[in-house]
């Protein structure tokens, strides 16, 4: 039998060709976003020449209505979108994991209170909540991160709680208690590592959803504020029918980037689910 640990997971992941390609594409896009200041030919907020001109050698994806280079803006837009997605995922995962752990392990009234609160957040008309929050707080990159982070966690909390509920009945948890291990140790060093796999998979879907939500909010003008580019507010130009039909370079790049990002993240998440499934270890 092969040794357990990290390598078999990688091997199982590599069995999904599409996911490997997706991961590759994703890494390239992330690299381009991170290295935007080095790659971008122009500053994202400065006019460079003609307004709303199609792709030329100088501006490979054309220029927007204010004369800014679309390619440069796209690179910086990916930066803000990925940052929003990543940070929102980190925040909501942290909230969800902690609440789920506590709720599942301690049970009783603690569980009831936390789960009612979770259901409340979950059943609230989501986009409305975000819109109201965005209207109350000053819209901007960090406020949208916080808003999405504090709204996306209920799914994670429920997932972790469900896992903990079944794990706390297992004998290794009972054995730990029989061995006099403290609760903190049992919760964080025994139960938590067993829920890492589903948490990771769920996090990828939160990542994808956050990017979509950011795009939606910014498109509606409640998210990242111009002139700072984001994939959402770059789509803003598509509101007009003439642009939509005659000037595709203004909205196509941002739109395609969103689709590619979200698809790749979801494919990677799916492959991760298979790769981390302990039932696959026996094969």
């Amino acid at each position, binding site marked *: 039998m092969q040794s*357990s640990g990290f390598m078999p997971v990688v091997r199982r992941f590599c069995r999904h060709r599409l996911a490997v390609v997706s991961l590759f594409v994703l890494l390239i896009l992330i690299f381009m976003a991170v290295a935007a200041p080095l790659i971008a030919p122009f500053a994202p907020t400065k006019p460079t020449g003609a307004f709303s001109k199609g792709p030329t050698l100088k501006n490979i994806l054309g220029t927007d209505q204010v004369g800014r280079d679309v390619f440069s803006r796209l690179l910086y837009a990916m930066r803000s979108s990925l940052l929003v997605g990543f940070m929102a995922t980190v925040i909501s995962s942290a909230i969800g994991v902690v609440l789920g752990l506590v709720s599942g392990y301690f049970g009783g009234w603690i569980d009831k209170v936390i789960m009612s609160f979770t259901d409340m957040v979950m059943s609230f008309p989501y986009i409305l909540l975000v819109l109201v929050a965005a209207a109350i707080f000053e819209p901007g990159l960090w406020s949208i991160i916080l808003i999405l982070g504090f709204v996306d966690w209920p799914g994670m909390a429920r997932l972790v709680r469900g896992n903990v509920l079944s794990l706390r009945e297992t*004998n*290794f948890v009972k054995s730990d*208690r*029989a061995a*006099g291990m403290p609760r903190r140790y049992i919760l964080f060093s025994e139960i938590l590592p*067993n829920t890492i796999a589903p948490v990771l998979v769920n996090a990828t879907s939160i990542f994808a959803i956050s990017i979509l939500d950011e795009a939606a909010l910014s498109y509606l003008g409640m998210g990242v504020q111009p002139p700072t580019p984001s994939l959402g507010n770059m789509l803003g130009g598509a509101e007009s029918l003439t642009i939509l039909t005659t000037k595709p370079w203004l909205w196509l790049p941002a739109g395609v980037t969103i689709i590619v990002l979200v698809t790749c993240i979801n494919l990677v998440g799916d492959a991760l689910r298979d790769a981390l499934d302990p039932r696959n270890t026996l094969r």
Partner: protein
Amino acid sequence: MEPILEVRDLDIAFESGKTLIPRTDKVSFSIQPGEIVCLVGESGCGKSITALSVLGLLSRQGRVTGGSIRLMGRELLDMTEKQLDEIRGRDATMIFQDIMYSLNPVFTIGNQLTEGIRRHMRLDKAAARERAVALLKRTGIPDAQGVMRKYPHQLSGGMRQRAMIAMALSCRPKLLIADEPTTALDVTIQLQIMELLRSLRDETGMAVLLITHDIGVVAEMADRVVVMYAGQCVEEADVRTLLASPAHPYTRALMQSVPGIDDDRSRRLYTIPGSVPEDYSHMEGCRFAPRCPHAQSCGCRPEYKPLREGHLVRCERAGEVQHG
């Protein structure tokens, strides 16, 4: 000598909705240092919850409603969870039946084994590892160094149970509670594990409370036997007396339902008619009466009393049963 464990009049009840349903009725027994006591009975008669309650490990619905549990003279029922944590693992510990999930699947054996040792014995990493390897060797694992690096799913059932025992023994407990430790294993491994437990007892002088429904295991292992039926102790005696002349009809029936190697071929294997009633808390008088071949129509109310020195029975007709 002062007993290691003394359980007296223990009542455990389980919550069902708003009502409490009693599951044990004044269970009493004690274990001397170095003694192996078997707790015997059918499924659902209260053996496991009795054992779990000793370490305060009853599930959320269960609670102790009366009686006392004294471990080396200290009352466990009055202790806080924190105080119990000091006792658990060091003075008394427990191993379980299900070997599949008795070890954490995401950590290596070595990792899990050293964790407990380091906590209770305050050893550094290297010393804890050394002790862990020695323990694994002692439990009869051939490649102890290699097993330290393995994950639970890479071990066989017998190996896993050995690793479990090593873990339980890591801090030299004075009482080991084993809840059907070999039920999930095949017969040869079962024998090896039992022999291991007994030799560990001889070596360390720890007391063992062994829960089983297997009379064969009882004959093999026990110094003394406590038979439970429907939440009550029905008979207690040293193993020779119990096997030679059982005085309670239930004990007798249990023994008759084991096939013997030199049985007459024509002997029909005895089965006890019916099963343990699901809710026996409201039953008046003898709880075994509905299934008992000796039951009288009057419906007696037997008390748990000594038949002679060291032999307790809960049956009005114990004397007749013993000689009939």
